[in-house]
């Protein structure tokens, strides 16, 4: 079963990350690097991406003529998707365990951040008999 693990961060998260001491940034990045490496070596890895800073984020809608109408940046938005992992594992519990590991990434002073990671199942295609 596939699950997406979404790491959200508060609007200030991107900026405050940049104001940590150098050693804290290094430790945090090394931790994430380790998680990704271990995941890629395990059988359950599907994909993982980190998203660029939301400073340039736009919300897009089609106008009457179908042309894009862009809108943003949004001062009211409290949280942004910072990145995600997609894993293919035997059970939801396994996905939760991976999410918990990532959640405990260290912050300043080595204290675990325990950031919230949203876990959702990824729907599969229709079973063969329906095709």
């Amino acid at each position, binding site marked *: 079963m596939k699950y997406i693990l979404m790491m959200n961060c508060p609007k200030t998260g991107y900026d405050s990350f*940049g104001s940590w001491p150098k050693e804290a940034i*290094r430790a945090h990045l090394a931790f994430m690097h380790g998680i990704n490496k271990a995941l890629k070596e395990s059988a359950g890895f599907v994909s993982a991406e980190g998203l660029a800073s939301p400073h340039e984020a736009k919300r897009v809608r089609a106008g009457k003529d179908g042309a894009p109408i862009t809108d943003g940046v949004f001062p009211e938005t409290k949280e942004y998707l910072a990145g995600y992992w997609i894993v293919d594992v035997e059970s939801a519990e396994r996905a939760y365990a991976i999410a918990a590991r990532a959640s405990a990434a260290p912050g300043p002073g080595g204290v675990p951040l325990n950031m919230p990671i949203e876990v959702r199942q990824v729907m599969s295609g229709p079973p063969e008999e329906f095709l």
Partner: protein
Amino acid sequence: MTAGAADSGFEHLVRELTPQVLGAVVRRFHDFASAEDAVQEALLAAALQWPREGIPENPRAWLIQVASRRMTDRVRSEAARRQRENAALHCGVLSPAPALRPETERDDTLILLFMCCHPALTPSSAIALTLRAVGGLTTAEIAHAFLVPEATMAQRISRAKQSIQASGVRFSLPSSRERVERLGAVLHVLYLIFNEGYTTSAGAELQRCELSREAIRLARALHGLLPDDPEVAGLLALMLLTDARRPARTGAEGELTSLAEQDRSLWDRREIDEGVALITAALAKGSVGPYQLQAAIGAVHDEAARAADTDWAQILALYDLLKRMSANPMVMLNHAVAAAMVHGPRAGIELLEAVDADGRLRGNHRLAAVRAHLLEMAGDGDAAMAQYQAAAAQASNIPERNYLLTRAARIRDSR
């Protein structure tokens, strides 16, 4: 591309032969798009059969034979479907592959490079097609290198072939009038392949070195075909002199190390020596171009035993020339860095105003990153930190973003 040592010899041979085989098949059937598919099928057949049964005595003829058979099968089934008889297409027995003179083989590889890097194609299409038709990579390998699904890459390649077909370009060398411009397009595509491998435009891995290696292989082949062209030699030298620094460029956790802080003992001496020899010989020919100048700059960096020994005055002189030759904002940016190293950071910062005014690098993280470095050199920590953070917010490459954040943190920590 990911072959183990055991079959790397086989792999190497197949990839060398790809453009020659494709050239021969296109000459016989006059249909580039189908011939390209047929050659891919022949390569796959070879990948299955040769390791098991041994490499045939004349591997080139074997591949041409198999690809040609695919072509006739295709033509036949097409004809059958249309219920239209054309005796000429129903050649029951395949005529043996014509014995080509070596010059023809050489020309074929060149013609293919010119075709795949046709100006009618977008850079991403030209890159994909070049890697497949000239480089002999499979669609899956190219898709993997660019981190896109295989179906996406297959589409990109097939559209590229349609564009080439539609452009009506003939399978022949460009006229001497067109040649300079078309060779420029080829060099640009090879340069982009190298760069894509050296600094990926997005994603977590800073270097996908197999693409760089492939670009070097293709540039080496092109240099073999046109040994007297100084810009071809310049591009190959530039790639080697840049690639030589690859082992020192990233740390244990994938983090980026700046040129000034790299452990130079890790640099690849063999690549440096080859690059320096190439660029020295090319410059002596007296027809200087942008790739030669960039290679010369790379050579000056590579020849400094320590960062402090870098001959910045010479680098600045080379950037002066380069800037006069191409009004590229990245060149202006690097020129500003060199000026700062020779005349002090304020001189560099002043030159950045022209880059701002140019506008093409607006929103590009490199402009803010260079400004940050120069402000840091000038001792203006607050402004430098702000610029590092602005650059980090604009970066689309994770290791580069992390590097910029770390530089900002380092200034903060030192207070």
